[in-house]
């Protein structure tokens, strides 16, 4: 495997211009959609089959260093988890990991079962009714295989979205948190940067200025497949009890003869 690539989204630098969102649409030829009213400048409310980069606008009372209301911006994207629920759920093998560590959906193999949609802890994967397949950010798979960064990172005017090798970006991100803390942003923190943390680390990780729940991110997302073994064992237990019940009912008590 090649050296792992990553995107580091430093939300403290985001100005909400949505150049990333537009660049993503243009490069990936994603169609326009009906806008929806979300109560803020944010559009759309969630990722859709044609919106893979989405700038979130959050108003957080008391979250700024001087205690005022903070207007938090975050350019959100598929996290390309090291332990990816969608990838583990995919029964066709359409969802695969590239040599760069990113997670991609092979559109020629996906048959639209939608199990990945329910297995993403972040609500990223979306079913497209027109193509009959699941859609999400590709990490601009075509671009990174030709030595270019993802369109969103390229278009970002403030370097809020940075693209590079994961280890280098992680070091950079840690320094940036220290700087921000010294500036008074006491809740500045990395999200998904630590490879020993949840989901084996996210290959698109973030710097947040408030706790994850302020950004509607789960504090401690878990791999959906963690339950399979326990649930299967409990099912086997249930099968044994049910089977014994049936055996008890059907057992020939010598009143009708027979082979058993």
């Amino acid at each position, binding site marked *: 495997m090649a050296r792992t690539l990553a995107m580091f989204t430093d939300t403290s630098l985001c100005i909400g211009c949505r150049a990333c969102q537009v660049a993503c649409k243009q490069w990936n030829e994603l169609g326009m959609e009906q806008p929806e009213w979300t109560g803020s400048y944010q559009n759309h409310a969630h990722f859709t089959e044609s919106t893979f980069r989405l700038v979130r606008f959050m108003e957080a009372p008391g979250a700024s260093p001087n205690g005022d209301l903070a207007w938090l911006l975050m350019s959100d994207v598929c996290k390309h988890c090291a332990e990816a629920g969608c990838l583990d759920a995919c029964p066709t093998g359409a969802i695969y990991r590239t040599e760069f560590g990113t997670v991609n959906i092979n559109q020629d193999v996906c048959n639209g079962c939608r199990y990945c949609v329910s297995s993403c802890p972040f609500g990223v994967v979306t079913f497209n009714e027109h193509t009959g397949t699941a859609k999400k950010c590709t990490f601009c798979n075509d671009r990174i295989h030709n030595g270019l960064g993802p369109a969103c990172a390229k278009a970002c005017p403030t370097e809020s979205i940075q693209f590079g090798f994961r280890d280098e970006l992680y070091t950079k991100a840690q320094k940036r948190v220290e700087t921000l803390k010294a500036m008074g942003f006491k809740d500045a923190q990395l999200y998904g940067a630590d490879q020993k943390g949840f989901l084996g680390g996210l290959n698109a990780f973030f710097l947040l200025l408030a706790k994850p729940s302020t950004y*509607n991110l789960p504090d401690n997302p878990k791999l959906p497949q963690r339950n399979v073994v326990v649930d299967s064992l409990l099912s086997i237990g249930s099968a044994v009890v049910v089977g014994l*019940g049936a055996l008890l009912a059907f057992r020939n008590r010598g009143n009708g003869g027979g082979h058993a």
Partner: protein
Amino acid sequence: MLKTPEWGMMIVLYFFFGGIAGGSYFTAAIADNFGGPRAARVARVGYLLSLPLVALCGLLLIADLGTPSRFLNMVRTLKFWDPMSLGAWVVGVFGLFTFVSSVLSFSPSEETAVLRRRIGLVGMLFGFFLASYTGVLLSATALPFWSDARLMGALFLASGASTGMAAISLILALTGASPADGMAKVKQADRYSMIIELVVLALFLIALGSAARPIISGHFAPLFWGGLVAIGLVVPLVLEFVGHGRAALGAVSAVLVLVGGFILRYVVVMSIQS
């Protein structure tokens, strides 16, 4: 934030018929192997019922895909830790077992019967799998309630047993079988399964606690408490015990169990997707 897969009525029906197919097959296999000649009719009805149902299951699954023409991609690969991948394979393999068992159930020869019983013992394992893996599949998602339910597979299995046995007893009743044809035995097995299902359901709810809210309160609560618990389990059990052997009441209770089994799948699948 989280997204639901928008699985609708086709998946509800698949879960329901898959449970009956698995339940009726393992009931048939147990009756065939351990029930003696008096259970022969139960075995045949069980095998013959599972065959068309598992075929219907396959069709429902294919029709629900976003790109149905790519249904064979489901068996492009096999992931042992992935309920849906295993499940797709098992629908096919179990389908073969139901076909072979059904064909062999027509042979009067004792040698074929021995072979059929052995095949039944193996096929039974796939029947258990088909009846329960759909619950494990739901609990291996990122969605609340589904992923909180450790006993979803166990509950679906018990329901598969009770509905599979109810379906067999209903067919026996409609085809004019006498109690001597194993009717009494399959009824007794069904009573055990219903009691097990009630116990598992209670444990399921206790273990879930407040995570069970989508089904125990709100929009789906009347269906859950009235449709599944009361009409689908308690009433049929009471009918079985007070009706004692009356054929008409037995048929009514079998129908109620089937209704309850459908409502269980409907409530579980739809409650967090609406």
